[in-house]
């Protein structure tokens, strides 16, 4: 019994010792992060956003979905912090619950467009030649579209719903990552360490996925963080054009756009979700900018 725990402890120590460089690396990152004030603000905002999304069901004072016509269009008060909308729904509750939807959209879109883009980009950049030509021409095509128009067309083609919003935004968004990952992969594949791995006898897929791909991830991640804001805004734009999620889902963008005709007399209906969007997008932008600064190799050295 005892010996096992000792062994385990030994292993743990070993584990920690082995991870020491990672921990040091983290310490370094932490230091840079602390010295980049905007990144800190961004992180705080995003953490709050995520916490709200997680605990939304506990926080909400009212049912965000069902309407209560007797309480419509009430201005902000202690009962309804952000007031109520044209259906008498508590805007505060809707904003809170909406954070989950936004998070879900961001998560899926990032996953799909980031994943697809990175994969194609790495493949294009790694193999070069005609593989690259083909993938890049396709990317060019998608890039040449006004992206909102493409998203609109997709949303229109698929019909407005949460899933389709996500698909439409992803389809439009992957090109950025493809280009980025391609550029990165092209740079990395020329690095001596990749050549060394090839000299050791590794095959293409091994090099590409185990060695090149991981190195492409950090710029992609930075870009993803920066794009997360854009994702919300695109969703909002679709909402504005009536192509967003299905009502009565409290997606922030469609809340802003549905409430916009009340802007003069009942400003709170679209203003609060608008502020929520601005806040979160701001957070992601700060964070992305900060991470970019932190990742800057010139600062790292």
């Amino acid at each position, binding site marked *: 019994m005892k010996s096992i725990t000792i062994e385990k402890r030994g292993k743990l120590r070993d584990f920690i010792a082995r991870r020491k460089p990672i921990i040091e690396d983290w310490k*370094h990152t932490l*230091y*840079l992060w602390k*010295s980049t004030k905007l990144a800190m603000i961004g992180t705080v905002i995003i953490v709050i956003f995520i916490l709200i999304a997680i605990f939304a069901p506990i926080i909400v004072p009212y049912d965000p979905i069902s309407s209560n016509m007797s309480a419509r269009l009430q201005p902000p008060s202690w009962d309804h912090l952000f007031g109520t909308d044209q259906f008498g729904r508590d805007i505060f509750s809707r904003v809170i619950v909406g954070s989950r939807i936004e998070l879900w959209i961001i998560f899926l879109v990032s996953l799909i467009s980031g994943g697809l883009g990175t994969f194609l980009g790495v493949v294009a950049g790694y193999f070069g030649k005609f593989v690259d030509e083909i993938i890049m021409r396709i990317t060019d095509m998608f890039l040449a579209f006004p992206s909102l128009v493409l998203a609109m067309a997709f949303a229109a083609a698929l019909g407005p719903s949460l899933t389709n919003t996500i698909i439409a935004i992803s389809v439009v968004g992957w090109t950025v990552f493809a280009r980025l990952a391609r550029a990165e992969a092209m740079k990395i594949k020329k690095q001596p360490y990749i050549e060394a791995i090839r000299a050791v006898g590794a095959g293409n897929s091994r090099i590409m996925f185990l060695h090149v791909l991981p190195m492409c991830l950090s710029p992609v991640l930075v870009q993803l963080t920066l794009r997360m804001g854009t994702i919300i805004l695109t969703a909002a734009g679709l909402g504005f054009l009536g192509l967003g999620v299905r009502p009565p889902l409290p997606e922030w963008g469609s809340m802003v756009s549905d409430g916009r005709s009340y802007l003069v007399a009942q400003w709170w209906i679209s203003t609060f979700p608008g502020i929520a969007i601005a806040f979160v997008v701001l957070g992601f932008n700060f964070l992305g900018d900060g991470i970019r600064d932190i990742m800057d190799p010139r*600062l790292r050295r």
Partner: protein
Amino acid sequence: MRGDLLDVRELKVVFYTYRGIIKALNGVELWMNHEERLGLIGETGCGKSVTSLSIMGLIEQPGEIISGDVYFEGKSMQKMSMEELHDMRGKKISMIFQEPVSALNPVMRIGFQVAESISRAKDIKIKEAYPEVLKMLELVGLDSKRTASLYPHELSGGMAQRAMIAMALSSNPKLLIADEPTSALDVTIQAQIMELLDELVREMGNAVILITHDMGVAAEFCDKIAVMYAGNVVERASTVDIFEEPLHPYTKGLLKAVPKIGQSKELVGITGTVPDLVNPPTGCRFHPRCPYAMNKCSQKMPPLIEAKPGHHVACYLYTQEGEHNAN
């Protein structure tokens, strides 16, 4: 007054970084006279460039001079106004760098960049400086008319370095600092550039600080050599003395590691690595690698003393106390 041109006293420079404070210069002592050629040698990261930048007054964030001073022709640079400092750089001290192509502004023609220097040095308009530009470019062996209208990337490394030299010498500075001017160049080009520099400086009578880690270059060009290690000048003497009678264990080690053609001895390196300047060794920073290290060495940095006439060294082996301790 140790040198009538330049006197660097107890210069300490630090850089504030995430890893901590890099104590880059640890009380550098350096001096030189007019028309002297001083070689500054040492391993990577020992503070050669930082020393030269300090002399130029170009230590910037995140770096800071925390103590000591640089006296140029007897004037304290710490006390100079911004304007005086700019003037000093433009007129009295010039500098050339290691990577000639990247040291030139990529979007400006060579002619303009040289003209800018001349206009700064002579207080004339940039346009009026062009005749002078052509003269300078001629002087460094370039096809002056053509080169003046080229951009840096259109020059080879050697040509770019010539242009840099033209720029640097256009003000006929009292002091020229050349920070590894040839280490990015090929040996054949290096030989050309060093020859050119030798000629020009001889004619114009500038003092030169030549920073290099190539013992050969230093041996051929300089009359005095200062050896740096981890932020200190550890030895300073005439070139011949350094090569033939090195005193400091570090200098000795360095010389033993240099391969020479036609000399079939085994090479001996210096064991260990250059210390991390965030947590430098106490006392003499060389002591962990020094075969002659004594107790004392780890306690206090030995001062730079004149062990023989004109031969300074910072090592306890050559101080009174050091000899005592050794016994």
